[in-house]
């Protein structure tokens, strides 16, 4: 992480928002259980916790999306009810969500004007004035009349921050703000956050990356199962070094006893790179992609002259900023998207003309990043989803007829082997948690016949335990079976932890490949921002 360690000044004791005893129940779950917290002006306050710890619910309550069942929220000493997102904005509480919440077809100014009284004509002059003001504060340079769909993710995030601060600069909530950014973008965000803090904004920063929290936060609060389980005040943070902070936080997050060493490494992104099992690159590569190009729809980045080679037993990482052709690369490799130019050779065989089913029969497997949107049929059972790519083929189909007993038996076995937590094999897959859906996908795609496996953001949205599990499966997949693996991820830590070599994508092509050795991170960073012509 390239963020400078922030000097921890004396934070102001100016309370912006105080929560006391906030409780929110959902059917079967207490999402927030008597949470008492204080957010102060001029302080960066990091909230940490596993999936399901209650962070999202807490943000929803603060931003007016949901109402607490019990408890009180005070602003400037006065109890308030944040009845709607509009009420939150009016109170000066702005939220930047993990997923971009801008209207791509509207311009920058139009997006900022959104939310006024509906009958009113648009007041461009007033909006422009406030826009200039906030541009100054954030030192942002955006074209006010550019359609938002054309902005980079970093610029979109700046715009979102502007909008969050539009009605007042009391509290800024940032939900996982770095997950879509380049290392450079993360650095810039750090600068903005510190500027805002010094301007007197209470910045609430939700993250699952401990390193980021340590570098940016003045105060860290850890949530677990809906409760506040620990807090590190500015004084403590000043005295502890990074290692100690991480130990303390992990202790809070999992209870001291459970904090296994390996898990901790995954958490901090400091896991040792895998022991090099010396990939033999003397022979022919298992996969060769040559001069590959695809055609893209509006807003997509197609492949152009993409070249790749992966040897048997090798794990090749694909780094790059989201939207630089990664999706097309994965789909082209899997056979879902035809190549408009170039060719693909797998184990000496030209597979360019093969579609999904044929590629699968020669050992191509693809674990998509959109588990519910693409990887599974949401309303269908776990059992059906486990055989989704074998429909019509033996042993589960004979003469076109479905052998449901065999499919269900197969599903029960897989559920047991892969420890999928599901009420039964006939449960609709959409009812499972993200981690369990990923286990189903891994079970479906990682079989002994796999020769080439493409993982697209294999741990996206997973909690830490499932992240570790998925990464272990990736490593096991290469080492023991000699398959060629391609791991696409925008989390550099993940690639550094799992891969043998890392290729960088930019503008639909591979701009360079780096051995995963000391110094790789810097080289990749330079390639990503185009500083090195590889």
């Amino acid at each position, binding site marked *: 992480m390239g963020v400078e360690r922030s000097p921890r000044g004396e934070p102001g004791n100016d309370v912006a928002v105080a929560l006391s005893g906030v409780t929110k129940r959902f059917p079967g779950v207490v999402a927030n259980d008597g949470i008492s917290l204080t957010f102060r002006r001029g302080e960066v306050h990091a909230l940490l916790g596993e999936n399901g710890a209650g962070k999202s619910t807490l943000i*929803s309550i603060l*931003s*007016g*999306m949901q109402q607490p069942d019990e408890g009180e929220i005070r602003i400037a000493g006065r109890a308030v009810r944040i009845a*709607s*997102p*509009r*009420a*939150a*904005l*009016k109170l000066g509480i702005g*939220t930047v*969500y993990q*997923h971009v*919440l*801008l*209207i*791509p*077809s*509207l311009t920058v100014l*139009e997006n900022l*004007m*959104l*939310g*006024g*009284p*509906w*009958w*009113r*004509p*648009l007041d461009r002059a007033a909006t422009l004035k406030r826009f200039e003001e906030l541009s100054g504060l954030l030192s942002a340079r955006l074209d006010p009349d550019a359609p938002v769909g054309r902005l980079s993710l970093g610029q979109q995030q700046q715009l979102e921050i502007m*909008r969050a601060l539009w009605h007042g600069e009391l509290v800024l909530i940032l939900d996982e703000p770095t997950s879509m950014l380049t290392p450079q973008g993360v650095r810039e965000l750090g600068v903005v956050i510190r500027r805002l803090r010094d301007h007197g904004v209470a910045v609430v920063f939700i993250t699952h990356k401990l390193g980021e929290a340590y570098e940016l936060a003045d105060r860290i609060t850890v949530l677990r199962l809906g409760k506040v389980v620990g807090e590190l005040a500015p004084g403590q943070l000043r005295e502890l070094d990074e290692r100690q902070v991480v130990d303390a936080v992990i202790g809070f997050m999992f209870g001291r006893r459970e904090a296994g060493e390996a898990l901790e490494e995954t958490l901090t992104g400091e896991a040792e790179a895998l022991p090099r099992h010396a990939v033999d690159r003397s022979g022919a590569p298992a996969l060769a992609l040559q001069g590959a190009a695809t055609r893209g729809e509006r807003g997509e980045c197609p492949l152009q002259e993409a070249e790749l080679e992966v040897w048997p037993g090798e794990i090749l990482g694909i780094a790059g900023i989201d939207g630089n052709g990664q999706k097309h690369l994965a789909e082209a490799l899997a056979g879902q998207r035809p190549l408009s130019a170039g060719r693909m050779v797998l184990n000496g065989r030209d597979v360019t003309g093969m579609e999904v089913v044929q590629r699968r029969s020669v050992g191509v497997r693809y674990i998509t990043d959109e588990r519910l949107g693409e990887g599974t049929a949401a309303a269908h059972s776990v059992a059906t989803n486990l055989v989704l790519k074998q429909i019509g083929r033996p042993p589960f189909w004979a003469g076109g007829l479905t052998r449901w007993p065999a499919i269900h038996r197969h599903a029960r076995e897989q559920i047991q082997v892969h420890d999928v937590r599901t009420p039964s094999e006939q449960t609709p897959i959409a009812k499972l948690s993200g981690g369990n859906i990923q286990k189903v996908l891994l079970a479906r795609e990682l079989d002994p016949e796999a020769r080439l496996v493409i993982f697209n953001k294999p741990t996206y949205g997973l909690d830490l335990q499932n992240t570790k599990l998925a990464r272990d499966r990736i490593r096991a997949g290469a080492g023991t079976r000699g398959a060629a693996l391609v791991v696409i991820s925008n989390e550099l830590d993940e690639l550094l932890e799992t891969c043998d070599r890392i290729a960088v994508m930019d503008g639909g092509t591979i701009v360079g490949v780096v051995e995963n050795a000391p110094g790789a991170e810097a080289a990749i960073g330079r390639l990503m921002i185009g500083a090195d012509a590889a």
Partner: protein
Amino acid sequence: MEHLLTAAFLGSLLLGAVTAGVPLLLAGLGEQISEKAGVLNIGLEGMMLFGAYFGFAVAYQSGSFALGFLAGGAAGAVAALVMVLLCVRLGMNQIVVGIAITLAGEGLTALLHYFTFARSYPRLDKIGTLAVPGLSGLPVVGDALFNRSLLVYLAVLLPFALIWVFRRTQFGLNLQAAGDKPAALDAAGVSVMGTRAAAVLLTGFLGGLGGAYLSTVGGGLFLPFMTGGAGFISIVLAMLARGKPLWVLFGAFLFGASLSLTTAMQVAGIDVPTDVIQMLPFAMVILVLVVFGRHSYLPPALGLPYHRGER
């Protein structure tokens, strides 16, 4: 061929295009508002029928066209209210509810007609016209285009008003956002449901108004199923117009012209079976879809109910 270009033929074609085009224009602009906000309103045909019946009934009873138009618009809006409650509020399938509204519109208005006007088939007088000074005296086009009722002029101005609403008002931005990315609108503190509800009600009102024009001005009487697919054609117009009101204006009069071709040809003394002419607008829609189909645009969130927290 030369008698095709006589003044009488062109005049009656233009007049027919206006008369048949105005309902399509009103309903098409209405549908455009809904579609912009992310609601596919398949019930438009039913809403037009409600407007046609109640518009006619009120105009007939009161003797006032203005009251008739108002009643027609209101009837369409009431039908739209059902859609608001079931689709926008409760998140039910928009297609199922749309079909139900169309069936109800067909059945109820035919039933009401049977019990009220089916024996006497009363007709309304011709609506009063407003001649535009100077222009109404032009040959061929004068009478057809510049000696029409007030509603026609208002309907033609409506696309321009909508352009202003879409581009220059908060409501316009809200509509666009509700169809493009409802979650973002919600996060901006604007009620997605409220925006969509307003859009659907407006659609109902404009559809009903179009229906009322069809019965009171177009025919001077109400007939069961008299819209004959005009609602669905309007939906296509809205789809192909890609959010641009002027395209609806253009398309509505093009379709209006093809709908009115029969009468115009009869005026010109050419005998073509009406069924062949009736096929024309639908064949044209299909042709347009096949040729320009890939350019039709619908907002990403069209047809999807919005639930907070599912994005």
